[in-house]
């Protein structure tokens, strides 16, 4: 087994799928994974030795002696669900160096492949021109052409090719995307599920559990699991109350522009609603420009 992994136990699993996430925008992937771990009561079985990937985040000195130095934890969990065996990987921090990120994703896949993993899912955020009162959709990005048809069948899900002006292209930054790329090169199929977060929320250090729920709805349906996600609703409501408080501090003129996102779609199939295509482009551009300037008016 790979150097750099510490095992507590080695579970015997039947062709498990791996679901992985690292911290990112809105903590969307991490919230989804932690929720899944909790409701499934998944068991920890290994961790990545963190010191090569992360700087320590805390120190404890007792009576003049170094007692402990703590690092962000990156742990593996497993669960035999009855329908599907599962591996979960919850990363504590994305390494700041690209090569270390590459190395870490390979370590995760070493563990998964050694346990017979058949497929990988990652969970992350998709920054989108949507309004926070709308139900976030999920962007699905498979790492193989043959998974595109499957991803199209997922509920409340869109593909890059469905988006206006993208031509099926885009990029996923960070390890949630890199893991799937490395999985592809190692012959492992996978899909990245990205929950939508409004562009005006994404730049704040605020969790967005509503998008985590959208991801979990797709993921659990795909894995044949029935799980209670009601505690995510409570978290989402609390966050939404905070957003509303902040929303009313935004200048009226800007708020009106953002409000139009309730009626504006950015995918090809969506109807233009009450405004023209030209209006739609202008609104998206104005909102984007406003927030690029750090939310300051001219």
């Amino acid at each position, binding site marked *: 087994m790979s150097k750099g992994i510490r095992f507590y136990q080695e579970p015997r699993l039947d062709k498990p799928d791996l679901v992985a996430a690292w911290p990112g925008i809105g903590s969307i992937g991490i919230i989804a994974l932690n929720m899944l771990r909790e409701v499934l009561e998944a068991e920890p079985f290994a961790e990545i030795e963190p*010191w*090569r990937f992360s*700087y*320590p*985040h*805390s*120190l*404890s*000195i*007792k*009576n*003049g*002696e*170094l007692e402990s*130095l703590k690092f962000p934890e990156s742990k593996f969990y497993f669960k035999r669900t009855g329908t599907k065996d599962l591996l979960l990987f919850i990363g504590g921090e994305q390494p*700041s*160096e690209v*090569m*270390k990120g590459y190395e870490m994703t390979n370590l995760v896949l070493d563990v998964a492949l050694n346990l017979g993993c058949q497929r990988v899912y990652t969970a992350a955020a998709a920054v989108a021109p949507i309004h926070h009162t709308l139900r976030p959709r999920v962007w699905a990005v498979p790492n193989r052409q043959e998974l595109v048809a499957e991803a199209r069948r997922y509920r409340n899900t869109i593909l890059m090719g469905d988006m206006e002006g993208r031509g099926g292209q885009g990029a996923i930054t960070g390890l949630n995307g890199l893991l799937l790329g490395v999985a592809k090169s190692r012959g492992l199929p996978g899909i990245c599920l990205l929950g939508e977060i409004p562009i005006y929320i994404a730049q704040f250090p605020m969790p967005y559990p509503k998008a985590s729920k959208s991801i979990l709805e797709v993921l659990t349906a795909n894995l044949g699991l029935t799980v209670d996600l009601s505690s995510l609703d409570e978290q989402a409501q609390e966050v939404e109350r905070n957003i509303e408080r902040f929303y009313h501090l935004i200048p009226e003129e800007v708020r009106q522009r953002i409000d139009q996102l309730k009626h504006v779609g950015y995918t090809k199939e969506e109807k233009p609603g009450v405004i023209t295509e030209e209006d739609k482009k202008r609104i998206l551009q104005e909102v984007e420009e406003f927030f690029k300037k750090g939310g300051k008016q001219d």
Partner: protein
Amino acid sequence: MSEWHSFKIYSTPRLQNPCLIVGWSQDVGGLGPKAIDFLIRKLRPQEFAQLNPAGFFSLAGVPVEGDVLQFPQSKFYSCEEKNLLLFQSSGPGQSHYEFLMLLLDVVEQICKVKEFYTLGGIISLMSHTSPRRVSSVVNQPQLKKPLAEYGVNTNLEYETPIGARPTLSSFLLWVAQKRNIAGANLWTEVPFYLAALEDPRACKQVLSVLDQRLDLGIDFAELDQEIEQQNRQIAALKEQEGDVHRYLTMLERGIMLSEKESETLASKVAEFLQKRG
């Protein structure tokens, strides 16, 4: 460790389980670099190795400070007469663990180091006329007793506050502990208004501890002169500036300054001392 992570060695020092003193270039009160520079001047050690900067420092550009181009350096020195090693370096910007492992590879595998001491300043709300206290953090308990004999506070309690992160010296102490190499971080108090300048008194205080512990036979006359000069200069400023006089008097009486008062004192002392070189 990648192919970039490497060191150059020019000669193998003939030492018997030496001790190592580590100083980082960026330090409160200029303590680490000042103390190591002082030891280099006094003990005239030989530079024998260096860590290559690639992989540890961003080499996308080189900074210029005070009109002079800077480049990260991580150098090892040996003093056979005192059975001593010195390491002076900038703190790496990335691959911290590999950097510390490489440092320990050189001193453990090539020099068979016995124990090490890191130097560092800690900001204190004290007056410059008060004695500086040195506190230690050890990675093996047997180091506490000898350090306590030289007046070091060996009972420190500390938890990283929210928003802060451990120092590189703490990380080194932990990495060394995993490799069973005994070491201590020596933290010396520096008055807050000297933190961005130099504090020769703090420097002398920690070097006095090491002088006794490692039997270095250091002549401190040069540092004594610096301390005297700095005290004289601050006394002159105190006479000239009513604010400075009041704030320093308050500190000497153990009265806390407000944030604004502290800022005023620090900026006036810095401006005055920098003008006088």
